[in-house]
């Protein structure tokens, strides 16, 4: 009888503790950093079973807004310069991200100059033959393969960074196809032999070919050495200093272990 | 008098349900044949074999022969529109198509290629008069057919069938939903019509059969029990079941 009661008591206390101790951390924003955050959350929860980390995408704007409004404790943003809305938020650079230009693997072009990139994305240059690429699939008709430009949507952090760092004020061609995620851009490029687009370095797969800019290839060595410099920061935004588990989570991200996870999956660590 | 329609060994099944069982029947020209019998005895199904309206239902199976003026109407190369124009039909419930009185009547003739306005107008007047409806609707021919009263609708349907200039008219309990006055109007019309047409009338009302029919066929459970002149059937029926039915002892 005593045993039964004590077992029940222990169970109740256990359940009570479990309920009391489970803390939820909500984090949302940048789709570019989302997979990394998920991975980091997974590792963090393995060490802290009493914490639940909910990772949402939504985009940098959502990250900023939801951090500002308190819907989440941590917002993620991947913009070169933070907008006005982010004023008053505490920003921490969690990682850096290289942006690479990708083409179809069958494309003969390996290298583009900054000028060529600007010409292509603004629509002034419209076929691969002029860039040393091969004649189009429809070669029998004698025409050159035109270039399909794939870009991100207005407002996207990746797009803004790309514009800031490479286009430098040159207007994007209105005929460019617009896709709203990194994966979608890659999918578009891998399915169209004449396409060109840009994505973050971390998600390049063998289905697409990353090309060099002014002779510098986006190889891990070049990126780490700082030679390939099309790189943007990824911010974690919080409302004031975070305490408790959320603070621990940020510390974990910045710790050598967290930074290693980031580096292993294709982003640049900050430390 | 010559036989207009000859039915020989007619059987009809819906799926596994045997609805008509070896019917043999001759219908003479310019007579009114009434078919009587209790519900579910196959009267309507029989009527609908005469213009092949049962064919719409995909599960129906028909064997036997029906000759119209000596032509087998179940032969393969019979054109159904041709047959249905020769054999007009009026249904139990009046079904004016959702259009005006005028358009209802000229529907058939138009399909037949009659386009002259004068001729169509003449046809409308003629048929409406024959159906005893002209006086009631002549000023509102462009009113929707569905706005008429039940009895008027049924006479409109009769007029519509007449406009096809058929040779045979099938009537499926045409007075079932009507009041006595409308009924007598229709009976009056039928009496006039038989001078020109052969009429087959299915009715639940034995008195009506006695009033208008020249000959009567009594159907029971898919079989034709007895056939004879109206006078004979209603005075000295040969079969006990016929007698029971017309005297109201079962039904």
């Amino acid at each position, binding site marked *: 009888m005593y045993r039964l009661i004590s077992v029940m008591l222990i169970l109740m206390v256990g359940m009570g503790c479990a309920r009391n101790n489970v803390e939820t951390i909500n984090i949302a924003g940048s*789709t570019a950093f989302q997979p990394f955050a998920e991975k980091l959350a997974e590792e963090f929860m393995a060490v802290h079973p009493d914490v639940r980390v909910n990772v949402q*995408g*939504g*985009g*940098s*704007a*959502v990250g*900023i*807004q939801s951090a500002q409004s308190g819907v989440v404790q941590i917002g993620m943003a991947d913009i070169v310069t933070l*907008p*006005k*809305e982010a004023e008053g938020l505490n920003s921490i650079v969690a990682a850096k991200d290289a942006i690479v230009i990708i083409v179809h693997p069958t494309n003969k072009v390996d290298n583009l100059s900054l000028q060529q990139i600007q010409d292509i994305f603004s629509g002034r240059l419209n076929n691969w033959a002029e860039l040393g690429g091969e004649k189009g699939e*429809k070669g029998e008709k004698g025409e050159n393969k035109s270039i*399909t430009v794939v870009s991100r*949507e*207005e*407002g*996207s*952090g990746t797009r*803004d960074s790309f514009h800031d760092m490479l286009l430098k004020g040159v207007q994007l061609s*209105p*005929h*460019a*196809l*617009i*896709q*709203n995620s990194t994966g*979608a851009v890659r*999918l*578009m490029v891998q*399915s*169209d032999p*004449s*396409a060109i687009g840009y994505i973050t370095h971390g998600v390049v797969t063998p289905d697409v070919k990353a090309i060099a800019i002014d002779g510098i290839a986006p190889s891990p060595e070049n990126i780490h050495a700082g030679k390939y410099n099309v790189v943007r920061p990824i911010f974690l935004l919080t409302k004031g200093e975070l305490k408790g588990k959320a603070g621990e989570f940020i510390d974990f991200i910045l710790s050598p272990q967290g930074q290693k996870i980031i580096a292993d999956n294709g982003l640049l660590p900050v430390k | 008098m010559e036989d207009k329609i000859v039915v020989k060994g007619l059987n009809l099944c819906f799926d596994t349900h045997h609805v008509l069982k070896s019917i043999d029947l001759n219908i003479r020209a310019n007579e009114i044949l009434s078919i009587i019998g209790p519900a579910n005895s196959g009267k309507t199904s029989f009527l609908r074999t005469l*213009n092949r*309206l049962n064919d*719409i239902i*995909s599960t129906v199976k028909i064997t036997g022969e029906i000759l119209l003026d000596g032509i087998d109407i179940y032969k393969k190369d019979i054109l*159904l*529109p*041709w047959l*249905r*124009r020769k054999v*007009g*039909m009026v*249904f139990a*419930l009046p*079904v*004016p*198509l*959702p259009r005006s009185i005028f358009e209802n009547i000229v*529907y*058939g003739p138009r*399909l*037949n290629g009659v386009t002259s306005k004068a001729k169509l107008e003449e046809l409308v007047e003629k048929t409406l008069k024959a159906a005893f409806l002209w006086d009631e609707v002549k000023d509102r021919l462009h009113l929707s057919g569905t706005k008429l009263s039940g009895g008027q609708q049924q006479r409109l*349907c009769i007029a*519509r*069938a007449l406009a*096809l200039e058929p040779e045979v008219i099938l009537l499926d309990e045409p007075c079932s939903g009507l009041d006595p006055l409308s009924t007598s109007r229709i009976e009056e019309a039928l009496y006039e019509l038989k001078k020109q047409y052969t009429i087959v009338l299915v009715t639940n009302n034995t008195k009506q059969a006695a009033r208008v029919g020249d000959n009567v066929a009594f159907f029971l459970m898919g079989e034709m029990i007895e056939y004879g002149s109206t006078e004979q059937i209603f005075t000295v029926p040969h079969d006990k079941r016929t007698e029971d039915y017309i005297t109201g002892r079962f039904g």
Partner: protein
Amino acid sequence: MKYRENLIQIGLLLTALSTIAILFLIALFILHEGLPIILKVGIKGFICGSHWSPQQGHFGIFPMIIGTVWITIGALLVSLPLSLSCAIYLSEFSTTKVRAVLKPVIELLAGIPSVVYGFIGMVVLFPMVRNYFGGTGPCILSAAIILGIMILPTITSIAIDSLQAVPYSFREGSLSLGATRWQTIRMVILPAAKSGILSGIILGVGRAVGETMAVIMIAGNSVIIPGSFLDPVRTLTANIALEMNYATGDHRQALFATGIVLFIAIIILNIIANTIARRGVEK
């Protein structure tokens, strides 16, 4: 007893008013979020402007209105011949058994997520369009084909229902007057089922106008006024879903304002549908 009945009646009235409340709430929120930018840019500038680059302060959604219209018309051109012939055939010519099997199958397709259609469009349709028509793949044509297929089940299923709702006696009446089946269909059944079929088509148009995810995947999303059916376009819905993730400030308001335009377009479409339906009833 009387008291209870009254209580029930009031309860049900409140329930019934909930749809109006929801509609009102939606309108309120979207107007609240989107109206300021419309007032700032001006209604004409917003609707007729053809330059959309919100971060530079250009808010013109005219290309997207055109894009939406083209894709919707294209989808109808693809869908109508197929869905109507399918509905008429299944309702009037096929056997009951075939209809009983095919109609649920067609309705099943209405439940397949639009993203699946979009993805099949990318994988199967793009190469076909590139090979047979040229262009890059994402374009009005691809979007029209995929949307056309997506609204097939809706239109077909409603059209079958309306055709079947035409009283059987009309068919018998017409056939017994010597009409062929096709004449019966053309002159009696289609006119009688007209309002039902039309409301099905309008529902289909509504779905085509409102479709988002599939369109993002296959229309290309370029903000240009298309010159041919091989040009990529962006629709109003795509505009919202594409840029919402990253939009802030005026940009975000402009997306809500796009929603207002869409909202009003749908309301107008519904008023048209309502009028048609009412005319059908009066007849």
